[in-house]
């Protein structure tokens, strides 16, 4: 069948790919573009492991068709660090041991960055509600919330 | 020299299968190997069952069943169910 030829921006770089209508952005990121940092936990938008941003809007890539990304700017976990310099959130997750198995971590980092872009000084409750769409079964969320609040503090410069 | 024998208890509910109900024994032994061999001599097949299906508590300390365990005179040995964790 005729596939769609999509041109988009991925982590700041121009990218082109072919996809079928029913293929999700998650499927194309992982299987066609080999960016496997974005995880599939449920495929139904209930776990947040596949979180990415499309034109700076936080979404589940399992609920976006790859064909919808034409002309859009996609950010995945692979684009979060600046070269060898980790994003403050990435660093704080390591310092606070905010990951155990780590499979939910990329999605949570993307979601947390999206929160801090809108709200540089969130309360614990705001962090917990913003991250409610990102399931973590290992940590009980404690250290994740700690790490996000600490990263926010550092990014505010105090 | 005759050391105090080890007190050996089979709590595995299967052991009745082999021993016709007997559960407690006094066995002269320096190592767990001696205990297992002695029990297998009395009840053929029991030795392999103990090796494959049980853990052992020696004076309360739980170990995998192993021939090499040294026994103190008069120690308490319980063959207990294997524990499978998560």
């Amino acid at each position, binding site marked *: 069948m005729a596939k769609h030829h999509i041109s988009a921006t991925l982590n700041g770089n121009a990218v082109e790919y072919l996809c079928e209508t029913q293929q999700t952005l998650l499927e194309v990121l992982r299987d066609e573009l080999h960016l496997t940092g974005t995880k599939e936990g449920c495929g139904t938008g209930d776990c947040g492991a596949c979180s990415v941003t499309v034109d700076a809007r936080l979404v589940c890539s399992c609920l976006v068709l790859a064909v919808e990304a034409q002309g859009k700017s996609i950010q995945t976990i692979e684009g979060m*660090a600046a070269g060898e310099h980790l994003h403050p959130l990435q660093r704080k997750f390591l310092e606070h041991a905010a990951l155990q198995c780590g499979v939910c971590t990329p999605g949570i980092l993307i979601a947390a960055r999206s929160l801090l872009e809108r709200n540089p000084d969130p309360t614990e409750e705001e962090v917990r509600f913003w991250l409610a769409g990102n399931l*973590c079964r290992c940590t009980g969320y404690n250290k994740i919330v700690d790490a996000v609040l600490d990263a926010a503090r550092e990014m505010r410069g105090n | 020299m005759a050391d105090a024998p080890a007190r050996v208890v089979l709590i595995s509910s299967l052991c009745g299968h082999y021993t016709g109900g007997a559960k407690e024994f006094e066995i002269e032994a320096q190592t767990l190997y001696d205990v297992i061999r002695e029990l297998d001599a009395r009840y053929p097949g029991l030795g392999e069952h103990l090796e494959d299906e049980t853990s052992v508590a020696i004076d309360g300390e739980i170990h*995998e069943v192993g021939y090499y365990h040294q026994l103190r005179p008069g120690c308490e040995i319980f063959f*207990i169910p294997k524990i499978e964790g998560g």
Partner: protein
Amino acid sequence: MDAKTIAPDQKALKVVGTRPVRPDGAPKVTGLARYGADFSLPGMLWGDILRSPHAHARIRSIDTSKARALPGVKAVITAADFPEQKYEFVGPERVAINYWHMTRNVMAREKVLYEGHAVAAVAAVSRAVAAAALRLIAVDYEVLPHVIDVDAAMAPDAPLLFEDMITRGIEPAPDKPSNISKRVELNLGDIEAGFAAADEIVEMNFKTAPVHQGYIEPHACLARFDSGGQGELWSASQGHFVVRAYTAQLLGMNIGDVLVHPAEIGGGFGGKTVIYVEPVAAALSRKSGHPVKIMMSREDVFKATGPTSGSSMTVRIGVKKDGKIVAADGLFKFQAGAFPGSPVMNATMCGFAPYNIANVRSVGYDVVSNRPKSAAYRAPGSPISAFAVESTMDAVAVRIGMDPLKFRLANASRTGTPTAWGPKHAHEGYAETLQALLDHPAYQAPLAKNQGRGVASGFWFNNGGESCATVHVNEDGTVVVATGSMDIGGSRASMAIMAAETLGIAYDRVRAIVADTASIGYTHVTGGSRVTFATGMAVVEACRKVTAELCARAAMIWKVDREDAVWEDGCARHVDKNDKGKSTGKFEPLSLKAIAAKRAVTGGPIVAEAAVNAGGAAPGFASELCEVEVDPETGSVKVLRFIVAQDVGRAIHPSYVEGQLQGGVVQGIGWALNEEYIYDDAGRLLNAGFLDYRIPVASDLPMIETIMVEVPNPNHPFGVKGAGEVNIVPTMAAVANAINHAIGRRLTELPMSPPKVLAALDSGAKG
């Protein structure tokens, strides 16, 4: 997050107890770490599995011809592609490996035993083609009556899953088959005399729902098997050595012909100590001649992988007026799922284990029914019996008007306390966790209307067992530590810490890795809270062999007797063995780095291996305090505060130990309040997804306060006991006891969801 060390340190530790960044951290925050579904190979096919729509049916025939004819389909398999396994007799005590059962669970043969049971599989050039091929497979089913509930499955007229299954553990054996696979019984003292001597007796019935481990990563693997009879697997599991053994056995291969690469694992909690997709991908790869990847969907994970058992339980406890427990009786009926092997034996052993009770009877039944086969889940069995026992303990304390912590303390087991399974307790630790909560200001803090506070305790056998480690000293004096233990939550970091401590070098000079099945010796699963204990012992032993070798090299460099060199603070030092090993100061101490530089001229690479079958694991105890607020109009329960005090022996990396405590408690809160399987009348699962199978989300929870009580285990070089599991054991009862304290209603059925709480509120029955 305070750590409370009960026993004073034997010696000062430099690295153990610090909180460095884990070696595998950067790849996991940048998306570079590769999990089960993240591997691909050239020419790779996609595998997919056809699953039963019925809860119980006989398979009359399977027609795969249309699927095989579909363009892009490279292989189609059914159970006929796997060799039959001989039925192995295994004792009723064990959650045993029975390959006759395992091969049938991986691919149904005569019958499908639950909705989602695998019946056939395909490998095709794309996911879409594979999915289309499944729709072309025609299975002729004879639908049979099914049974879901454990009590219903035990009824004499219940539909039988196995027409010839005779209950084991009963002498003489029953003459009729049933769904009861085994009966176990533990006895201590004289139960009847015990109850006869009691001033008060409380008896209660309980039910718990099966709950899933809920790991975020669905099962996934990549297989490359060739016609030459060899194969490779990239698989996310809790033990790549057992994946190798099981897969080889199910395919009729030699263990040595299968190589398993340990992918990073996205959570397991016990549920990835067994296999589902690996032998299927392997068989498809072997048949098609291509690499094959299989990823389970979340729906498949819920329908076809193992939750822990649901249960029906009765507990009776007899006490004297002064609070001394004189008798305890437990009946624990566990759902095994479609094949025998629930953790009921653990439940019977752990239930009363925290207490010093002279007369105990603990009876368990392992019962099959038409739902997925149960798998291990965090302290398998113990949280279930603890819910019943600790709820009854709370009711007893209320009955005799005694503080629930002091009541437990008065009956707490200690070294020398006899257990229902025979041997005496050999370790302390329980009383210290109770005292930690008694000393906590929260315990006396005032509560508002509709709020309540509950406590509960738990016991778990931390495991030991087989582990291997290799330590390589690199040319520049850095060190690589390789083990066979999958890293599920920071174990690379704890291995590196223990190695650095033993070698006397800095943490960042050590790299810890997980080696594949061909590169290190057999190592049992990452489970049973055993890795830091057992694999840690292997690492320390290998490091000690290395320091011995380093001393030998130093002696050669100094041209002195081997016995005149000792290892201290990361250096070989010259001593006089004839002068009580006093340091001589004749030679400058030689650092590991300095000796590594001379390795060639002193004999070549410095490497040591250690293989252990670790014994002497000390059990874990935990006591927990929960505060809830109940909405009296909706039955909704909000957890306001939670404190977990657990004896961890010693925390090697405290942050990851705290994480284990917090994670276990939150899983327990989900188990207590919302998690359950909902089936329709046809035995089909209605909530096979994260939307309606409600695991806790961040906004449901408070911070979980941890108290790491450290009563070191003398059998481990650093006192480790194990931290991963016992934290979940008390949680459901702690929540139930808090709810009872808030509203005067005793919830005895899990989950304690709002409709149940509201019904309890509306009923007159006071708890």
